[in-house]
Each structure stands twice: as C-alpha cells, then as structure tokens.
C-alpha cells in the first residue's frame, strides 16, 4: 500500500470522500478523530506493515502527516 492508498484508508476512517486528505490537515479539525477512529487507525497500521502503535503517541499526533510518520508510511 503506497502513501496515497494509505491516506484513502484514513479518509474512510474519518468518513471523508476518498482523496480528501493530503497530509497537512490538523486532526483537531476532524470531530470524527476520536477513540473509535484511533482504534481503526491502529488496526490499519498493524495490517499495513505490522506497526504496533502506542495509543499515547497516537493521541499526541497533531496532523495527518504525524499519523503517517508514526505508522511508518512516510519518513
């Protein structure tokens, strides 16, 4: 799964039209970024490359790019 495909999965988690997220978005702007979405993101990262995410680190993410770095989708 490349970066764009991964982002589309994050779009789905946040119930957005595929292709909406680019990376620079602030998570605070998405009310659906809640504990349920975090669990979905943890499952996505685990399925993608076996990355186990710490909920504390996940909770500290500010932007979509932060999420991608944590999930080792981008450096």
């Amino acid at each position, binding site marked *: 799964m490349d970066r764009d495909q991964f982002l589309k999965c994050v779009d789905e988690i946040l119930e957005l039209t595929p292709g909406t997220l680019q990376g620079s978005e602030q998570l605070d702007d998405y009310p659906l970024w809640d504990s349920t979405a975090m*669990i979905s993101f*943890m499952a996505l990262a685990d399925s993608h490359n076996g990355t186990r995410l710490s909920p504390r680190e996940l909770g500290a993410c500010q932007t979509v790019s932060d999420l991608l770095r944590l999930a080792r989708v981008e450096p």
Partner: protein
Amino acid sequence: MHAAIRAIEYFVPGNLLTTGDLAARFPDWSVAKIDAKTGIQCRHLASPEQCASDLAVAAAQKLFASGASRPEEIDYILLCTQSPDYFLPTTACLLQSRLGIPTTAGALDFNLGCSGYIYGLGLAEALICSGQASRILLLTAETYSKFLHPQDRSVRTIFGDAAAATLLSAADTGDARLGPFVYGTDGEGAPNLIVRAGGMRLRGSPDTAVEHLDEQGNLRSSDHLFMNGPEIFNFTLSVVPSTVQRLLEISEITLDQVDLFVFHQANRYMLDHLRKRLAIPAEKFVMAMQDCGNTVSSTIPIALKYAAAQGQLRPASVVMLVGFGVGYSWGATLWRCDTALD
C-alpha cells in the same frame, strides 16, 4: 484424567437496548456505524432489582431443566463475577442454597472479567483431576450495565448482561478433554478498564459520584466503568496472537488442526482484525455478539451454544477458546468436544 464440558445453558434478562435506541441517544453515531464497529444489534440489561445471582440461578435452572444434571449431583460451584450481590457473603454460597445443591458441595467466587471462563475451566479441570470434585457447576454472571453511565457511549454500545451455566465432569474417553491451558496477567493495564470507586481503595461517596465529561463527550463518574478503548485494543494485539501461538506450541498442533476458534466476543471490529491477523478462516471463527453484546465472562459459553446451533460446533471438533480483558488478564485452552451442546 481430564475434565470435559457436558452441557451449557445461558440466560439473558428481558430489558432490551437496541442499536436503534443507542443511535437515537447518540445522534452523531448512526445505527450503521455502531453496527459496523461493534457487530452488536441488541443488548440485554438487568432490571434494577436483578443481580448477578438472579441471572446465574436462571441459567443454572435451565441447565437442570435440560436434564443434564440434577442439583443434588453437583459437588462444586464456581462463580465468576465482578458484580457480586454483596462484598460478603460469597455469592456462590447464596447460589448453593437457592439452587438446592447439597451442603457438602464446595463453592467459591472468583473475580475475573473477560478471561474468566478460561480460568473457570482451568479451575474445574484442576479440581476434577485432583479428585476434589467430580461434577462442577461453573457459573459466569455479570450485570455490568449497573456500572455504565447512560451517557457513556464508549461502553454502552458494547456491554450487555447475562449469565451462563456450564456442567463439567471427568472425561470418560481419551479424546474428550480440556487443556492444555495457557494464562497471562499484566496488572499494568488495570487503569485502562476499571471501576475506580466502590471498593476499599476508594469508597463510594458524593465525591466519587461527581460526573465528568471526557474529550469524546462521554459522561461518567468514578462510580462508573471506564474503558480506554485504544489501550485495550493495543493490549489484545499484543497478547492474543502470541497466546494462540503458545497454546498451539504446547499442544503440538498447528493452526489448521483447530476446527473452531471461539474468542471472547469483545466486539466485531476487534475480532475481525484478530482473525485476519492470525489468518484464521472466517468459517472456523465464531462471531456471536449480535444478539446480546459483550457479556464479559459469559461470551465464550454463549458463543459455544450459538456455534452448536449454527452447526459450526460438532462432536469431535477441536475447539480453541481464548479469553482476554480486564486486569489485564488472559488465557486460552483447547476443548476436544464430545458433546452435542444444542
């Protein structure tokens, strides 16, 4: 000698909480979203006057009515509950009297949640193998709904009340048996699934009843159940695959030699992910939370009954049972089934 499961019955109380009811209460969560995340369409809730013992009595009476055993044949009662009738006396002692089980029977409560059924089977196996008991009534009963704040959707969408009764006795063939067992415990996870007040550490008081709104808009006080969903999910990813692997190794079998997998029915999303992660075929994996939700220590026996009714569980099946949750606590075992549970 090994123990074998002879019969299972369960009971759910009559008050229903449907996903439609919850969607009406939490308008930003649709029926479709709750269903997709939890796989639960309906939860059964105890009435204010109904306690865990009442649910356990109803489940046990169903078991006796089925003809599987008579009360006077039971020589040990094991009750798994975290919502006992009283701090003391032991609820299992009350059940001995209410069920007409002989006063020569042993009886004890043990306090575990979603791993409780595995531990109960392990205790029963040990009691039977050591000759301390021959016919055990294992009861699991919870009224978690009494711990839930009505405005806390993080837990209200998931948990339901129920009790299950399992009859165990010595296996009379070489093939039908329980075990081996694997266990695990990590008390570092205690704060992630907890009712903080009400015990001796923090007695219930007006202070503990003060309600707080969390960042997600859920309301609760220290008297209510708190669950940190992401931490619990992380815990299951951490321990369930390795526990399954450890059980396979000590059993000297491979994953494809297991006919049926019955995991604690936490919620559909979590189980779907674990099933895929473990590469378990869907047809070998039981999903049975839709009609009663996460009933804590009763999910596995309820799922076994469901699997039997669906034709998934057949005599001579090798069944893997895995429980995991509050504590943290987890355990797994194999059941070489020789019983038609339906």
